[in-house]
């Protein structure tokens, strides 16, 4: 996780974020995030990173900023840092689907089965009508795991039959 600057500590002590002190509205903050998202979608990850890091510094309590930076860190395979930001995003807003999906991906790639599945379940439960592209990404992961387990099941079955 990016270390907390002296400014952030000062602002925290005052109970106000830099964003609040500068008078940046919710809408403006969201628009800044969407510019970062545009670069992220284009694959211009350096620019996206600059913006997401800046937004976290402006508002350390923004679940959206932590979720976005966590996604970028997941994409660039910086899993340890990503997990910190994704977990913080979930602490701040447990109703966001994306951080669960990205945490599931990291745990899956680290073969931490139970944690991966727990996060997939959370993401999928938040989207019961199968309309959210992020939750559908979680469904695709679950399908992949299913296939791996089914293959293993068939292998065990064949081995059992062969030995008897």
């Amino acid at each position: 996780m990016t270390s907390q600057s002296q400014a952030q500590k000062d602002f925290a002590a005052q109970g106000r974020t830099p964003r609040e002190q500068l008078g940046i509205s919710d809408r403006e903050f969201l628009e800044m995030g969407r510019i970062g998202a545009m670069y992220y979608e284009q694959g211009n990850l350096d620019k996206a990173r600059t913006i997401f890091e800046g937004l976290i510094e402006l508002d350390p309590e923004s679940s959206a900023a932590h979720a976005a930076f966590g996604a970028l860190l997941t994409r660039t395979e910086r899993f340890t840092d990503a997990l910190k930001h994704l977990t913080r995003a979930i602490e701040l807003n447990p109703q966001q689907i994306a951080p669960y999906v990205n945490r599931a991906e990291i745990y899956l790639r680290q073969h931490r089965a139970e944690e991966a599945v727990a996060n997939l379940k959370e993401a999928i439960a938040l989207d019961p009508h199968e309309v959210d592209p992020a939750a559908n990404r979680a469904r695709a992961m679950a399908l992949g795991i299913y296939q791996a387990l089914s293959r293993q099941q068939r292998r065990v079955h064949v081995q059992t039959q062969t030995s008897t």
Partner: protein
Amino acid sequence: MFGLDKLVGGITDGLLGGLFDKIGMPWMKDIISLAGNVMSLNWIGAAKDVFDLVSQFSNSFDDQIDRNQPLGDFDSNRSWNSNNTLDAYRMDDLRERADEGGFDLNNAFRAFAEIGLTLAVRGEVQQHRRAVELASVI
């Protein structure tokens, strides 16, 4: 063994592998291919949860899947429209206010600069578009 064999009937390994490429998860093929003993020991506890999850899918969700790791709230409605409130002048204003206030915000300053540049380009594009529209009317 697990007592549930649903959904995957029509899905072959090749098809699923293609799906994962298509949706930006090529690494998933490595997960699927790791169906050895380590995998089974590691996954045995989670298997029932996975089968329960998959059994509830409708088979049509793959029409709309995020190709990249999803961003969350910043991700929705990405297109810019006329209701946008930010412009390059506002970013300059924020930078000046932060500077004058003695704010020690290195990351935020860099973000302001990047966003300000982007908005300046957007402003130029919109001006050009308006000019073209005006010329077509005249």
